[in-house]
Each structure stands twice: as C-alpha cells, then as structure tokens.
C-alpha cells in the first residue's frame, strides 16, 4: 500500500492502515444492508418486491433494453436543457440582485418566495400552459433549478470583497468588465454550490413531471414497471437516478477543489 495515496491526516495516523480503518467497515456495512434487505424481502414481502439478487439479475437485461436507453436519454436531455436555461437566466438574475441594491430590494422577495415554493405544486399549472408534453417537463426542470442558482449567485456577487471592486474602479474598469472579470470569478464557488442544488432539484423536477404527465423518461419507466409489478427492473432506474445525483455531486465537489483551491467555506474536518 503506497503512502503517497493517503491524505496527509490519515498518513499521520498510520500505521493503522486506511484499508482496515475505512474500507473494511464500509464494505461490511454495505454487505450487511444488502443481506438484511434480501432476507427481509424473502421472508415477508410478496415475490414481485425488489430485492438485491433480483435487481442484480435485472441489470444486464435492462441496460441493453432500447426502451430503457431511450427513457434515460430523454430524461437526461430534459435535465441538461433545463439546467442550461436555468444557469443562463439564474446567473444573470443573481448578478443583478447581488450587485444592484435597487434590484435586490425590488426582487429579493420574489426570488425567496419562489425558492420557498415547493416546485411540485406547479405541475398542474404547467400542464395547463404547455399541455401533457415534453415542454411541460422542461418548464418544470427550469423552475425547479432556477431559484437556487439565483439565490447562490446573488449571495456570491454580494460577498465580493469591497477592495477588489475599489481597485477595479480606480483603474477605471468599465462596470461590465468588472462584473465579468471580478464579480463572476469571485462568486464562482457560490455558483457551483447553487448548481449542485439545482442538479438535484432538476432531476426531481423531471421525475415528478414524468409521473404527472406520463411522458417517456426514467421517471415514467420506473412508474410503468413498478405498476406492472416488475420492481427489480424499475429499481435499476432508481439506481441510475441515484448514480446521476451522486455523480453530479462528486463532479462539482471535485471541480471546486480542482479549480477553486482558494475556496475554503465548507471545508470538512477529516
């Protein structure tokens, strides 16, 4: 086992190895969860209920199923589009309320208000406005994602150190250039944590929209298969959604560390 792969704090604690300290308990807990799940379902639940062995057997079948692949593509495309729209408008609106006091006073209550609204309640409205279509799902993901980006970019733009702005002013930097060269980079960590929230919310938005509207996608795949008592197959969809959620989280954490190493707001203990 190479010590260079260890985090500094763990290296100091050596010689007790990371493997015995961390990997073994984690694997044991994972195995325990799977076994308890399997045993409980076998003992008490009807045979259609999802259990680890059934899910494992279903995975190779499901991931080559064209219907599943189409559903995945459709949901991911909607989430990506929704996020792109939310990021563009959310960043613009966030910069506006973060840097202009008048805009902040005028719009803050709307932003906080929409942010506090459980986004799922707009489903009946978007179906009224867009019909039972993909556009309604897109609108739901945009609405779900937008406000966490506005709020976070706004916080970030507000917290730019005053000296930075003053230096830019004294060098007669035009306002727009200051915004792009100083405010935006300085607000980047906030932006990324806003995006992290937004990804999760957009995924939820897309799934509930598919439940509600019954258009093709991962959410509908899960709904349809669980209704026809194919829980193992349906659960593969849940695993994929979880993987997207976790993957997006990890990607954003990694980029924060990689590209914004100066940022230390939510530094973890260990």
């Amino acid at each position, binding site marked *: 086992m190479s010590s260079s792969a260890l985090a500094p704090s763990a290296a100091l604690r050596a010689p007790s190895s990371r493997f015995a*300290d*961390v990997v073994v*308990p*984690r694997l*044991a*807990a*994972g195995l325990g*969860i799977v076994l308890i799940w399997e045993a409980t379902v076998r003992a008490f*639940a009807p045979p259609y*209920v*999802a259990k680890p062995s059934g899910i494992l057997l279903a995975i190779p079948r499901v991931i080559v199923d064209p219907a599943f692949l189409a559903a995945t593509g459709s949901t991911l495309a909607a989430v990506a589009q929704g996020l792109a729209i939310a990021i563009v408008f959310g960043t613009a609106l966030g910069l506006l309320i973060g840097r202009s006091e*008048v*805009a902040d*006073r*005028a*719009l803050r*209550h*709307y932003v*906080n*208000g929409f942010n*506090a*609204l*459980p*986004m*799922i*309640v*707009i*489903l*009946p*409205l978007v*179906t*009224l*406005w867009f019909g039972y279509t993909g556009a309604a799902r897109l609108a739901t993901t945009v609405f779900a994602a937008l406000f966490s980006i506005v709020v976070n970019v706004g916080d970030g733009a507000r917290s730019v150190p005053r000296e930075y702005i003053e230096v830019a002013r004294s060098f007669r930097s035009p306002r727009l250039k200051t915004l792009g060269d100083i405010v935006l980079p300085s607000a980047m960590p906030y932006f990324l944590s806003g995006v992290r929230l937004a990804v*999760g919310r957009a*995924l*939820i938005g897309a*799934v*509930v929209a598919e*439940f*509600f509207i019954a258009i093709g996608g*991962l*959410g509908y795949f*899960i*709904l349809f298969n*669980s*209704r026809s*008592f194919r*829980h193992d197959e*349906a*659960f593969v*969809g*849940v695993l994929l*959604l*979880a993987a997207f*959620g*976790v993957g*997006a*989280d990890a990607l954003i954490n990694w980029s924060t560390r990689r590209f914004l190493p100066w940022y230390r707001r939510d530094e973890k*203990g260990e």
Partner: protein
Amino acid sequence: MHPATLRRHAPLTLSLIAGLALWEVAGRSTSAAFMAPVSATLERLRELALSGELTNQLISSATLFATGFALSVIVGMPAGLLLARARILRVAVEPYIVILYATPMVALIPFILSMMGFGFAPKVLVVFLFAVFPILYNTIEGARSIRPELIEVARSFRSSEWALWREVMVPYTLSFTMTGVRQAVGRGLVGMVAAEFFLSSTGLGQLIMGASQNFDTAGVFAAILIIWILGVALTRLGFMLERRFAPWRE
C-alpha cells in the same frame, strides 16, 4: 415620510404593486382556464375558506406533514448523534447516507404505492424520507465539530456517557440539527405534496388536483398560494429555531 426611508422602501413597494398588477393583467387578458387574476384567486380563496373546505384540507395536510416531520426529527437526531459518537459506525455507513441524500426520493414513490397502498402510513413514509436526511446529515456534521477538548474535559471529570450526551453533545449539536430542520422544511413540503398527488389524493394536494381537473384555475392558484404561505412561514420558523438554539454561532 423621510426621504431616506422612502428611498429604502420604494423599490420593494413599487415591485410588489407591479407584480400584483402584472398578475392581474395577465390573468384578465388570457383565457380563464389558463391563468387566474389576483382578484379571482383571492375571491376563490375566500369561498374555500367560508365553505370550510380549506380548513379541512389544511388540517389533513398539516397532520401528514407534522407526523412525517416529527418522525424524521425523532429518528434523525439520535441517529446522527450516535453516528458522530461511534466513529467506526459512522465511517461504515456514511457513504450510504451520502448516496441516499443525493438520490431523488420521489423515484421511490411508485414502490411505496404498490407495496403499501393508499393509506396514511405510506404518505407519512414519503414525508419522512424527504425530510430525514438533511436532519441526519447536519446532526452528524454538528456533533463531529465538537472540540475534542470538551469531551476530554467531561471524561476527566468522569462524566458518564449519558451525562456526556445530555450536557455536551445534545446542547452543542442542537443548533446544527436546527439547520437541518430548516433545510428539511422545504423538502418535507415537496414530499407532502408529492404524497398527496401520487398516493391517495388528500389535503391541499387534492385541492390543487381537483381544481385543475375542473379547469378551476383560480382554485389552483388559491391552493398554491396557501402552500406557498405555509412554506414561507415554516421556513421562517426554522430560521427562528436555528437562531434560538445557536446564540453562540455567528
């Protein structure tokens, strides 16, 4: 009015008036099935309140939310403290908690539906699943941030494990738990409405669904308004609790 006060309040007042006017105009200039103006929404809200329907559905939703939410605090806080205290346990299950936290819980609703049916319990489970993870997660993070000196001092005074929890861990961690509670409010409300939409239709969710099926757009807006007020009020309450239990946190 003092000019400075005027300048301070003018943007908010003007934007509120503009927002309400825009809502009213948009409602009046489109078809009634598309959008309802403020006036019609408030009128419908008054009718719903007078008929007693609003109160009934509000009580139904509040019962669901309160049960699920209370359960997630009762489970989330002790579990979080335990995981923070027992290092081996925390190391072992932490990745699974992170994974569950990042999983869109709505995806589990179809399974809950087909296994547990249409009663009250499955809906409580949905609210619980939505709300428990922020509480659990923040409690773990909070309890982990206790300075080791505090625990060592308690230990050197031969504090029992129980006294250590009561005098150090719980009081210290409570404010972090409250941060989790505040974050959980929004998620719990989403869970509540999702349960009312996709499991048996009750409460404010039923009010929205029923109104939208009857093309009663004013009714949809009225119900959304109530849920929004609920969300804002509960989030405010969360912030207050957070500050109440954390006078020492900046």
